[in-house]
């Protein structure tokens, strides 16, 4: 593997630093760890470039030789052999889009994750504001309920939720994909903790100006909460873009509702020997958006994903 050349460069090319056995040992361990962590990413990318023969025989290095190969499906359609020679890299990625409605899956993924996030904010923000800044009878009870609900993982109650949605005739709809996630008690808790730190004076001043409580939430509190909201957005989007369990349960058969993970699973279900390349291309396309976004805004992502670590 090409990464194997890493250890040499990291210690040799830095003569300015004093050689230390402990430091080298640490890097050796960390590099071995990195290789194991990166292995499947390497396999995924590499196979998405290679021809079926290269995948089967494990040849061609990382990028494959990109030699033309014969597309048997094209021959079956009765076209000329000369027209059916394809470059592996291009074949894999075009097949990924042609063989299954991948664009549709990606679109569904965007619609579902975006709707979930917006509804979560719409529900959680006012509630968090009320719990943090308004005094009313029953407030402690509502907050207690929020704390209790934090104990319940939604995946664990998937079965009764599924029964409820089935009784309402909502399985195999966008609604089924979104509804269970509309309430994020974690979002309420997080935003409440954040709003507690907003000074009361700010809110009182807004009230003096004659703003309604409703417009205070959206015009005063929301802008102050942007950093926390951004972190929550990342938390929510990553969880639901990657979620496989819930879509698997409520969407059966209807391909037009598949989210990217379901689409990939379906692809695997009918993959035969020639389709490994396109399948890896599909996997790459599904995994890439979040990985690229993560590379660009690492700190924000790590903050967002580990939000649940906040107390």
């Amino acid at each position, binding site marked *: 593997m090409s990464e194997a050349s890493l250890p040499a460069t990291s210690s040799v090319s830095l003569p300015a630093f004093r050689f230390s056995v402990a430091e080298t040992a640490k890097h050796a*361990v960390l590099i071995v760890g990195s290789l194991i962590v990166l292995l499947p990413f390497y396999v995924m990318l590499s196979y998405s470039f290679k021809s079926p023969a290269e995948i089967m025989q494990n040849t061609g290095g990382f990028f494959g030789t990109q030699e033309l190969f014969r597309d048997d499906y094209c021959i079956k359609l009765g076209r000329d052999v000369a027209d059916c020679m394809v470059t592996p890299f291009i074949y894999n990625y075009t097949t990924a889009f042609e063989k299954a409605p991948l664009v549709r899956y990606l679109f569904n993924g965007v619609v579902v994750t975006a709707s979930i996030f917006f509804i979560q904010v719409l529900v959680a923000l006012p509630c968090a504001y009320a719990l943090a800044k308004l005094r009313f009878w029953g407030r402690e009870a509502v907050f207690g309920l929020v704390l209790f609900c934090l104990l319940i993982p939604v995946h664990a109650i998937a079965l009764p939720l599924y029964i409820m949605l089935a009784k309402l005739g909502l399985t195999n709809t966008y609604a089924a994909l979104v509804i269970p996630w509309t309430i994020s008690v974690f979002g309420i808790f997080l935003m409440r903790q954040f709003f507690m730190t907003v000074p009361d004076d700010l809110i009182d001043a807004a009230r003096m100006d004659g703003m309604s409580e409703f417009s205070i939430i959206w015009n005063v509190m929301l802008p102050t909460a942007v950093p926390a909201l951004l972190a929550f957005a990342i938390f929510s989007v990553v969880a639901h873009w990657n979620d496989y369990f819930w879509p698997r349960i409520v969407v059966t058969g209807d391909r037009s509702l598949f989210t990217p993970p379901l689409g990939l699973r379906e692809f695997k279900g009918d993959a035969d020997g020639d389709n490994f390349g396109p399948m890896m291309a599909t996997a790459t396309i599904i995994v890439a958006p979040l990985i690229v976004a993560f590379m660009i805004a690492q700190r924000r992502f790590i903050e967002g994903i580990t939000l649940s670590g906040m107390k």
Partner: protein
Amino acid sequence: MQTAKAHWWFVGPALFLMVVILLMPIAIAGALSFTSYSLGNPGAEFVGLENYEKIFTRSTYEKMFGATFRYVFVVVPLSVGLGLGAALLINSTRRFGDLYKTIYFLPVMAALIAMAIVWEFAFHPTIGIVNSTLERGCGSFLESWSWFAHGCERGFPLWLTDRDYAIWTVAFIGVWQGFGFNMVLYLAGLTSVPRELYHAAEMDGAETAWDRFRLVTWPMLGPTTVFVVTISFIRSFQVFDTVEAFYPQGGGPSKSVYVMMFAIYEKAIQQNLMGIGAAITVVFLAFVMFLTLMQRWIVERRVHYT
């Protein structure tokens, strides 16, 4: 000063959804677990504790608990230990710390179902990169390890289809996916350990790195560890994607990877046996809630000393 009823408009929707989406399902699961309900049947027959009796006596469910606990008790210690180890190493190196951090965090971001499919390839007995790499070690000093020599002679294991290896291979993928998350939490925990404590410990005679770790770092990371362990438990109890990707039917070789979430899915969704599915759900919820309550209790007892 305040609009009298505004708060109920703010709290109302959230309250309604909490009750309908989070609390009602628990009640429904509880109620159905005493019946033999199936979707599409007009009524449900009350069967008392029969479902629970099945769960705790039949060998299928014995395998289910076995697989779940094996998975959980491999993944939790390893992902916590490796997360802590990686955090300590990264924190103590002078260079490239951010690079390692990025790499180790990648699996947390990637859709597990996609990576499961890739791992299945990597573990493929003939074209997989894992076994072909191992084969390259044949004839070297590694053969003095009897397991390795055996692999060279008779072929390396069929990682995912051999019942002696399947659950451990799936657990390995769980560790691979989860330890970066724990590492990041530990790195955050490490930044909050005051420098002065290390100086103080040195004055008190803590000389080796191990002493410093034992006397300062580990106790100061206590609250982080409690949290990391709990969240690792909850996440690994919920394992599903890898199991379903590798074994869409039946839960692996001799049901050795038949974890609870998959059992719920198979019994209730695939076979429409809602009663037994609901009973497994109740047992599952009991586990998870017990763990979280334990965590809160421990945190409240000991978190105050900083």
